């Protein structure tokens, strides 16, 4: 072979190699290229310890808004994520919610905690049992899980909704899961029975937030359940941090949406799926749901906080059908209408104009969104104007609640944070939770340093619910953490003049979601609305509470707009206690005051 022919062959080979190299540089392995066997390295497991650094809380002060009373409360419950399997599955990061309910109708709010689950090395998910803690008063709880029959196997649990599906006065429980979601009927406050199969609620797949409410005005509470992703271990992808090359959980955008569902209550614990008739949009990556009559037209509306894609606002027609109006309604995402990674949601009348604002927690580098309700289903993104822009941008927001923590009758705001990816260079996995004080309905001020010792420690917060556990008129908190304990926080403010109500519908569904209550004489922010859902995968105390009454010891009159349209007046209600208001037992009135 002469020299020139050798050179030309060599050149051909080099060119071929060069093109091959170019191809390699531009390509990353596709999901199909990745073997099914799961890559775990000792480094991945080591990170587990780095994830959960120990932080010592500061010591408690008398002026703290909340005091952590978990240790003495008897609530000893820890969530499991299955992370220890080292498989970086999608469901393991989302945590689980908590629910507050009076399951035995003794007037004291009990506590239901969801356990999440475990994952075996070959990717099989098993649910961890939930825990029901009976409130004995004075922040003392007893674990009654076994006693009431809730120590049954459930799938990998996420969300919880409480609703009276048979109008019998006993709150029933829906638990959503990665796997089969389950409906438990409360049998006279003594036992819970799994009625999933006979109820007609068939929810396999991955479902998260859920809420009960009568959306077709037939006096029976219906059910909305958000779907998250179509994900399975078999079709999982291997995702790596592009910079460090370390394996991490994937982003939700890598997987298709899961459908949300609406189930209409047929009575006697039976439901009918009405998803397509209701006009729900296909797909969705829902993590937060709240039901309320936001536009005050007498029909329940539904707001769904979606991860990665835009949020949905279903304006209810009162007959079980809806029109999705988030785009014109100004509720799709950030200030400029772009979608965000939304997780938790709550609503309250922040500025005292009679319309409930919506608040949505978002992913890092995104502001949380406060949507001011302008009426008629129209909202205006007002995060900046209310001083809520910025401070939480480094954090990933999950559970959130409006609650009048300082008992001045203005809804304050609490936000729980905690990352979802393990190896984030920008921010820690454990993140601080925040407390904002409502400043006269115009702005929020950060008072996290006064919130309490619990707040001084970064955590991985997920679910969150409000409850007046000791019936003292001051709202307390219960918070769930990813792979962490349930925390019970006692509100340290002393309520001088307050009044609370449990609503019981008759013509309306017994839960009376959507009812409005006003008290006289009128202090500012004198109106409360009963809503369902909210926070993140959690369910709060269903009672309505008013603080800072104008005349401290004098009885008040109460006006209730029931979801049925009935308006009634309840007279001379003594303050500083809870009252049960039953629809039909008040004095009917026609005009607004």
């Amino acid at each position, binding site marked *: 072979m002469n020299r020139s022919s050798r050179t030309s062959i060599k050149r051909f080979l080099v060119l071929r190699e060069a093109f091959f*190299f*170019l191809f390699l540089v531009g390509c990353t392995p596709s999901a199909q290229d990745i073997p099914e066997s799961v890559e775990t390295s000792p480094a991945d497991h080591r990170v587990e310890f780095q994830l959960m650094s120990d932080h010592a809380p500061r010591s408690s002060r008398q002026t703290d808004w909340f005091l952590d009373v978990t240790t003495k409360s008897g609530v000893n419950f820890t969530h499991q994520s299955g992370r220890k399997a080292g498989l970086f599955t999608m469901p393991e990061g989302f945590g689980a919610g908590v629910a507050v309910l009076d399951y035995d109708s003794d007037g004291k709010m009990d506590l239901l905690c969801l356990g999440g689950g475990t994952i075996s090395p070959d990717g099989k998910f098993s649910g961890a049992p939930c825990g029901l803690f009976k409130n004995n008063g004075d922040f003392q709880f007893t674990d009654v899980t076994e006693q009431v029959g809730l120590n049954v196997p459930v799938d990998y649990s996420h969300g919880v909704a409480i609703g009276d599906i048979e109008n019998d006065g006993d709150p029933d429980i829906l638990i959503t899961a990665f796997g089969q979601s389950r409906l438990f009927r409360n049998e006279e406050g003594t036992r819970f029975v799994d009625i999933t199969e006979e109820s007609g609620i068939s929810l396999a797949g991955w479902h998260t937030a859920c809420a009960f409410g009568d959306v077709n005005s037939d006096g029976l509470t219906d059910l909305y359940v958000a779907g998250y992703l179509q994900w399975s271990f078999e079709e999982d992808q291997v995702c790596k941090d592009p910079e460090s090359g370390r394996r991490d959980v994937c982003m939700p955008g890598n997987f298709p949406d899961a459908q949300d569902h609406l189930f209409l209550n047929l009575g006697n614990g039976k439901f009918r799926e009405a998803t397509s008739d209701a006009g729900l949009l296909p797909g969705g990556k829902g993590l937060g749901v709240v039901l309320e009559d936001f536009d005050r037209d007498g029909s329940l509306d539904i707001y769904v906080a979606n991860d990665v894609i835009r949020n949905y606002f279903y304006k209810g027609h009162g007959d079980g059908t809806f029109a999705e109006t988030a785009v014109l309604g*100004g509720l799709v995402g950030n200030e*400029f209408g772009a*979608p965000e990674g939304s997780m938790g949601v709550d609503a309250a009348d922040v500025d005292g104009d009679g319309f409930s604002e919506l608040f949505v927690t978002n992913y890092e580098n995104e502001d949380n969104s406060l949507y001011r309700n302008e009426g008629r289903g129209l909202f205006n993104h007002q995060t900046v104007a209310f001083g809520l822009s910025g401070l939480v941008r480094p954090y990933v927001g999950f559970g959130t609640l409006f609650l009048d923590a300082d008992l001045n009758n203005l809804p304050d705001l609490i936000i729980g944070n905690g990352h979802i990816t393990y190896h984030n260079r920008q921010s820690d996995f454990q993140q601080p939770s925040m407390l904002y004080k409502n400043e006269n309905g115009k702005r929020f001020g950060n008072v996290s340093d006064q919130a309490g010792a619990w707040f001084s420690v970064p955590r991985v917060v997920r679910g969150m619910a409000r409850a007046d556990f000791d019936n003292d008129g001051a709202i307390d908190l219960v918070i769930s953490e990813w792979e962490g304990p349930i925390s019970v926080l006692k509100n340290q403010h002393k309520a001088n003049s307050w009044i609370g109500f449990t609503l019981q519908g008759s013509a309306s569904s017994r839960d009376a979601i959507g009812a409005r209550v006003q008290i006289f004489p009128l202090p500012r922010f004198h109106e409360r609305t009963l809503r369902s859902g909210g926070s993140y995968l959690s369910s709060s105390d269903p009672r309505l509470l008013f603080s800072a009454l104008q005349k401290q010891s004098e009885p008040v009159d109460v006006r209730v707009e029931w979801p049925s349209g009935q308006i009634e007046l309840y007279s001379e209600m003594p303050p500083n206690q809870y009252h049960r208001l039953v629809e039909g037992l008040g004095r009917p009135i026609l005009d607004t005051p």
Partner: protein
Amino acid sequence: MSESLFSWFFVMNSKKLICLAALLLICGCGWIWYSVISPQNLLDQANELAQNHPRQALELVQEAMFRSVSDYPEAELLRVKILILSGRREESLGAFSLIEHPERLPAEKLLEIGKLAQESRNYFLSELAYQAAAKNPSHQVVALRALIQVLLFTRQEFKALTFVDQLIEVNSQDPLAWQIRGNIELNQRHLAEAERAFRECLKLTQNQDQEQSVRENLIQILIDRGNVREARKELDTYLEKFLRTAQVRLEEAYLLRLEGHPEQGLERIEQLCETDHPQRIKAVYLRGLLRLDLKNLEIAIGDFKTVIKQQPWHKEAHSKLAMAYRSLDQIDLAQIHAEISEELNQKAVRLLDLTSKLAEDPGQTSLRQEVIRLNQELGNFEEAKKYQ
């Protein structure tokens, strides 16, 4: 001495003369070989011809390579240069790959190849040449900087970061390296890391222009991170040393908005809105936001319309315009702009998705065309050009 030579010449016999003539001939041939047809000489000639007569230059290089007794990397490098100048991209890349140890070649020549390749948009070759040059300690800093520039241009920011780290390793006191790092992190929205890098740069820099630019970025980062208090502090420090640039005016107005002082924010940018400064449209948009905050709906609408006229793809302006129309009960107009904004948002999401797919499979022409089209429709003309 001369006499003896002379006599020697006359006394030598014919045999000796022949020997002498042969010797002279060999020397002459040697000289001719060395000065006219030696590989090095051929290369020198090729180098001279490279710019204007690339074909002849290439022939000379090939001849030189043929005449060399072993591998001739210098010739191969020159061949690469000529191929670049002839616009033969793939061949130049192939020829460069033929060089077994390019890092052993003179760094100046590698830098020249890198530059030529970069100018002819042969970025991969440029990257390889700069990488080889960067192995030469005396030219490492220059080569790394050039390499980082190419990597950033070709949007290989993760890779660029690796070389920025090398640059910092070579000289951790190099403020430029920290500035580049900060810029890369900022582009990737790694705000915490960007802030860290810019603060390092500020500790080291003696250059006023650099300090000003870094401080401007720092203000932006602190605002974006939501750290209003720190942003205010940083802005005050900036204003003690420098005059407000248009960018700083915008940041200050935005900061005032976050602090709950939209009226003061308006004052800061009013003037900028009336100029033909390149930042004018940004200023008009921000003025619209501030006017909307102040419920001056009609004039806010005017601002958003101005922005949309210039930049019909401005989804945020459409969204805000919809909000303003809605507040004035002009629902039909609100609906139109809300839908445009939504459509643009969906395109932006689709673009993100397609861009990552294209990164996985750069050879997909239809995907590339779609990415270019979406970039153009969303006003990202520079990005579109890069894909072209």
